[in-house]
């Protein structure tokens, strides 16, 4: 249907398009979206540079391990790139099952891996590799919601269908929250919500849903405060430290706990970078240990301190190129399912980037979400590269539809 329809009503246009397609069918540009490719490679290089710099002063930041993550990620991307993913559209039940299995994988005895208070990790037996399944959950959920959303052919007609979709998104979201990972849960929620909106949900439904969610959260906070005041913090739904962490971004100096300290140090790191930054190796905040997690969650602050405003703009420009190119990929793809998957990936990046960067500069509450392609950590790296692979696959297979 796609090829036939492409020409449109104008014969000239049809001719021009056909010619263009025929002459460049086999070229590289047809197989790989150049925008996504350039942005992706740029981000990997940028991340490698900053992690190399971090490895000079932070013992945990192992540059070879980061390179290994990049290597594995590239391999994964190339494999997925060659696979036509549209058949996943019919496997929504299977996707949901996989999703839930992945979420609860860390609870399986023998696989679960806990170290230094971290949960949500699994360790593959024999090969001693650790992995965070929740990263993969993000992509599987996007595919799952996209497979459901694609059934409505671009317009959800009844409220019942809409509510059903929302409920389906709620299942993996709630599962991730139960596992205690609020940050990843929000990523899952936001990317799924973007997919649902793009599936053709009516505007007023979406607005009402947002309103209801805000109301429910307010109600939850209010109830929590009441429980707090009556029974004390030990019985409350949200512990004080969690609340502090959520609210600290409003006034970082008011809270002397770790969250407040972390944010204050992050703000200092970003602000002291200035226009050109302090240069590689001169970032005193990050290299002297004032900035915690300078190679993982707060890596953006590290970049800002090292390369300044210029470096931050370059990074954000690369992210923007990646996302806009992916939106273009989604537009060019005719399969509604793949279109929605691409959009979901854009949603995922939107949320992760906005949350992570926003956290570093005091716009958003502090949550442990890695910055895609930059943060040290193989799980995130592999899954983000996999996401790029999916996008490139969607680009490569855009004309193969029946």
């Amino acid at each position, binding site marked *: 249907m796609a090829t036939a329809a492409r020409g449109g009503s104008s014969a000239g246009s049809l001719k021009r398009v056909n010619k263009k397609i025929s002459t460049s069918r086999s070229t590289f540009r047809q197989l790989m979206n150049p925008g996504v490719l350039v942005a992706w490679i740029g981000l990997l290089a940028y991340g490698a540079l900053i992690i190399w710099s971090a490895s000079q002063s932070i013992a945990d930041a192992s540059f070879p391990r980061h390179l290994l993550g990049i290597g594995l990620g590239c391999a994964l991307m190339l494999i997925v790139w060659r696979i036509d993913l549209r058949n996943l559209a019919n496997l929504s039940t299977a996707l949901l099952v996989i999703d839930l299995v992945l979420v609860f994988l860390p609870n399986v005895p023998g696989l679960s891996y806990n170290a230094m208070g971290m949960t949500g990790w699994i360790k593959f037996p024999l090969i001693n590799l650790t992995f965070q399944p929740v990263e993969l959950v993000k992509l599987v959920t996007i595919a799952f919601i996209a497979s459901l959303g694609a059934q409505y052919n671009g317009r959800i007609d009844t409220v019942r269908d809409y509510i059903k979709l929302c409920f389906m998104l709620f299942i993996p979201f709630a599962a991730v929250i139960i596992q205690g990972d609020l940050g990843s849960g929000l990523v899952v929620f936001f990317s799924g919500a973007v997919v649902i909106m*793009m599936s053709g949900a009516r505007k*007023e439904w979406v607005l009402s849903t947002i309103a*209801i969610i805000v109301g429910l959260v*307010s109600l939850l906070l209010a109830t929590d*405060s009441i429980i707090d005041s009556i029974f004390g913090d030990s019985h409350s739904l949200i512990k004080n430290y969690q609340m502090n962490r959520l609210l600290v971004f409003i006034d970082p100096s008011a809270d002397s706990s770790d969250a407040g300290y972390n944010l204050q140090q992050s703000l*200092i790191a970003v*602000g002291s970078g200035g226009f050109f930054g302090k240069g590689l190796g001169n970032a005193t905040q990050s290299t002297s240990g004032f900035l915690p997690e300078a190679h993982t969650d707060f890596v953006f602050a590290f970049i*800002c301190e090292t390369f300044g405003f210029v470096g931050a703009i370059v990074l954000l420009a690369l992210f923007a190129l990646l996302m806009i190119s992916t939106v273009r990929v989604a537009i060019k793809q005719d399969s509604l399912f793949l279109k929605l998957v691409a959009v979901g990936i854009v949603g995922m990046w939107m949320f992760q980037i906005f949350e992570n960067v*926003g956290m570093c500069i005091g716009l958003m509450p502090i949550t442990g979400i890695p910055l895609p392609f930059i943060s040290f950590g193989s799980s995130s790296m592999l899954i983000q590269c996999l996401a790029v692979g999916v996008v490139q696959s969607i680009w490569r297979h855009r004309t193969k539809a029946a």
Partner: protein
Amino acid sequence: MDAQLVVVVAGVILFVAIIGSLLFLRGYSGRFTYDTKNGTTPKASEGEGNTPGVAFKGRFTLLTVGIGAMFTALVAKLWSMQMVSSDYYENLAQTNQTRTVTTAAPRGRILDRNGVALVTNRASLAVTAYRDLASDTLLVRHLANVLGMPYVAVLRNIQDNTEGAQARHTIATDVRRSTVAYIQEHAGEFSGITIDERTERQYPYGTTACHVLGYTSTITQEQLQAQDENGDNAGTIQYQSGDVVGQAGVEARYEQLLQGIRGEQKVTVDAQGNVLGQAGSVPASPGSDIKLTLDLKIQQACENGLQHAIETARNSGYSHAGNGACLCLDCTNGEILGMASAPTFDPSVFVGGVSSDVWSELNSDDGGRPLLNRAIGGQYMSASTIKSLSALAGLEYGTYTSTQTTVCTGYWTGNGEAWGKHCWLHSGHGTMTLQSGIAHSCDPVFYDIGNAFYYDEQNPEGLQEMFRRWGLGSKTGVDLPSEGEGRVPDAAWKESYFQDWSDADRTWNPGDMTNIVIGQGDILVTPLQMATAYAGIAMGGVEYTPHVFLSAVARDGEGGDAYLYNNGEPRERLRAAIHSEDDLKLVKAGLHDVIYVAEPATAAHFNTLPVEVAGKSGTGEKTGEDEYAWFIAYAPADDPKYVVAAVLEQGGGGSSTALIAVRDVLGAIYGVDDTATGYDSGVR
């Protein structure tokens, strides 16, 4: 709780608003839809046909706008932080990684008039830690082993808050270099423990001049509070917790000169507070050295003479002897050449903090209150040493003339039989003039003077006026803290002092007058006051303010004396009006006769000196205690230069014990040891 209330209220309001908006939206839900709006306005854009993709076009536009909005928000915030406020954050980053460590400045030294150091500094290595180290039991035990101290002692020192809760607490001072090296080599095991290099007071001559020098100790909470209340005054030193300040004597009086200026060292640190490097420093500048008027030789003579006198008194059966004072001053300018007080204390016990046991011992009556400088703060009845002033009063106000005589029978009944009083010599002196009365210290002569003053219509208090004219009853103004004022009693004083007595009992009576005229009763003087009064007699009425400060010497420069006491000029304390030179001549002759005429035993001591001496003994009588021995002398009698005064609490007769101290000091000045061994136990 307030914050929670706000959250609750806000939550409720939001919830109500949402319910309202839901109802509102429901009412309008049929009017327009997202999809039809876009679907009905197709745009002929390049490349795309009107496939289902067209329906998505608006949504993609929105998505792109969303992405754009997100990046705009991030860039805007980054711009404001990195471009607009970068200086502010740069500043914070700097503060983050620098700490200012103050280094104590060495105090100035204290020298005698010839430049001999009486107080110096020595380097000392101290092990210090913050108070929270106490929670690390293992580390504290390890440290105790390394320092060779009991675990409990180390723990107590860490928890001791006298240096201020937030300051680093001193665990041990004067730690051996090898121990310090061990701790520094194993810095990992001893994290939180700091080695401070300090200077501490050293006293090369031990207790010598301890009362003049005073002592230093860590600034007290009260002193810090007083400083806070006084506020910032330009030019004064701002102290901080842990500073060592002078607490007594010259150390306290000339604190401003002795205290140096703290140095500041900026260090760069990492997040754990480990020092990474040093970022510039202001070196500490030591305090000024101070030169005192004391002459070490005379000072030691005062102390040894006092000790000699005390031993003599004890050997003579005065078992309570032990406290006293001896001082020597230059009557031509008020410089104090030696000042001794017994018992003494060791100022070095205050270095590094004095234990409460030692402190209470130093302040106990049983220990003789060694911190009290009896030369300026000890207040005693003047005894017969005051008779020279009484004689001047009698002559000036006509209550006794130079030719008048009194027959001393040993018992004076000048105010009636009922009020008869003994002369100290119960057998009686026979016929006495004023001059021989002074020489023999004959009491009835002065009873007559006192009695005559009591009944004198015009000048019933002429005697007290004379005492005050020569500076009794008021501070001499010596540049040492805690000087006593003394007391010259009169009718008004007695009236107000004994408030709970009946009117009859507190009326001034002839007995009071005949008491104070011979320096007994309620009159109180300090040894320095009496020495100053005798300096005035020696100098024909001029008394110079006694002082111990000679000059301040810049430590680094060789520029000599930077700051002199009163610009190098003697400061005149008072100039006592002399009624007639003959009066003074008579008194001086009496004082000469005390030494050379009255008793051969006394004369034997002074005959060996190359100069002529004039002086007066005194023996104070205090109910329930042995006599208080006084002796004051000046020399040379014809051209006075030195005044030496000595007091022994419960030391017996003045000319038998206190005289020894005075003679020893004069002997040291003129280089002639006392060879006479006999003592007159009679003359008072």
